[in-house]
């Protein structure tokens, strides 16, 4: 498709949750060196990140969704669907959204599934949820988007570790006849999939012992095959070349001039990337149109767009604003949306204690070894 328009669906509220564990530039300098970190921070713009040693995507999204239900006053049985976008689910199966249905105490009539996307996930998720609501004439849905990318990174990968943070978000969407339209522009180029992926752990490459070895690779990074692989230069090229035309196409489809747009909230990939995409799109570098909210959180994958709005745009709680959001990355996959947002409910970012929530599957007696010495 070129672009598409969804009518009659409105974003009512957004809550974001991050782990209360903070890693600072200084913490990272202890591992990567002071000068290296100065260079890194100059490019990334990330001076500290919230990271989870224990929390999972489910835990962060649970905290966000629980608060969202409180602040919206939405009854649990008024929710028709809960959709989770993540590339770091709790388990290979079942879908984490199914487990969250139970944990959140939602009705069994709720529809639930996971979508496996990362940096393009929030905007893709808005498209899917808005479509489900509009086409099915549903009432209300929760879009959960979150990732614990830091947990999938090799600890010594200096291209990944100092940049990424963990976060979960919950967005309340509702059918309202008078909602302004959402205009979407999206696409996919799987030839870029190789540049950002996790090699081992699914059907093409189940994990054997050799995949667990943390060894120095040809690109200089020490990692196992269970860790995330990223070719930063390729990601940068993809985003900087691909995003500006997408935004121009979206502006045309929405019938918006550059001056109409109050804010651009892009996936918070890195300050370097955002600044230069902004430059290519001729967004004034001195104004506040281009939202950069990654300093305190890092690149939080599928949660970065709602988190940046929460961090930088508190005026959204009182003021109607024309927003362009754009997610882009792993896949390659991209999705942008132009939304005229009515005032939304958006309380302060939650800080969730980074403690272990033992998985119930682990304690299942059926998993125990018959002969405990067999370890």
């Amino acid at each position, binding site marked *: 498709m070129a672009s598409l328009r969804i009518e009659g669906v409105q974003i009512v509220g957004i809550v974001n949750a991050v782990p209360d564990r903070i890693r600072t530039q200084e913490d990272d300098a202890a591992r990567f060196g002071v000068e290296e970190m100065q260079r890194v921070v100059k*490019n990334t713009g990330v001076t500290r990140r919230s990271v989870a040693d224990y929390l999972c995507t489910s835990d962060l999204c649970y905290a966000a969704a629980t608060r969202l239900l409180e602040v919206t006053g939405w009854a649990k049985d008024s929710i028709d669907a809960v959709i989770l976008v993540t590339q770091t689910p709790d388990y290979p199966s079942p879908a984490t959204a199914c487990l969250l249905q139970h944990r959140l105490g939602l009705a069994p009539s709720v529809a639930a599934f996971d979508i496996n996307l990362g940096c393009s996930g929030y905007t893709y998720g808005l498209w899917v949820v808005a479509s489900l609501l509009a086409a099915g004439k549903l009432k209300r849905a929760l879009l959960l988007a979150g990732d614990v990318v830091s947990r999938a990174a090799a600890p010594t990968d200096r291209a990944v570790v100092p940049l990424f943070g963990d976060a979960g978000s919950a967005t309340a969407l509702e059918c309202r006849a008078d909602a302004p339209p959402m205009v979407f522009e999206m696409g996919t180029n799987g030839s870029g999939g190789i540049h950002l992926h996790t090699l081992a752990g699914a059907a093409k490459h189940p994990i054997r012992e050799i995949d667990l070895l943390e060894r120095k690779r040809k690109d200089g990074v020490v990692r196992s095959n269970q860790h995330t692989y990223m070719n930063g*230069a390729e990601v940068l*090229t993809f985003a*900087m*070349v691909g995003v*500006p*035309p997408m935004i121009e196409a979206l502006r045309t489809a929405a019938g918006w001039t550059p001056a109409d747009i109050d804010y651009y909230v892009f996936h918070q990939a890195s300050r*370097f990337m955002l600044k*230069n995409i902004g*430059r290519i799109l001729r967004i004034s570098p001195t104004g506040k149109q281009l939202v950069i909210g990654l300093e305190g959180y890092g690149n939080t994958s599928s949660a970065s767009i709602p988190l940046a709005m929460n961090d930088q745009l508190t005026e959204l709680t009182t003021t109607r604003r024309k927003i362009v959001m754009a997610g882009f990355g792993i896949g390659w996959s991209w999705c942008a949306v132009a939304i005229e947002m009515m005032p939304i409910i958006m309380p302060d970012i939650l800080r969730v204690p980074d403690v272990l929530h033992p998985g119930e599957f682990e304690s299942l007696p059926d998993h125990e070894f018959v002969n405990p010495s067999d370890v």
Partner: protein
Amino acid sequence: MTKTKFYETIDDILELPIGTIKGDEALSTLPWDSLAVVNYIATCNGLFGVVLKGDRVKETKSIGELVALVAGHVED
């Protein structure tokens, strides 16, 4: 685009004060790194719709050679 305007764009890419680039600089005298290469490619794509190959941009040694890659889009 005029040459002067395009030199200002390169100033922008390299985060130099506007007016720094005159056109005869060797890249080795400038903060020209791999990020600048990507930036240059993306910028030319955005400005002119030209898709430059990374290898071609990496081979260049001077501002003059860089401009030559988008000859036809920049006025003499």
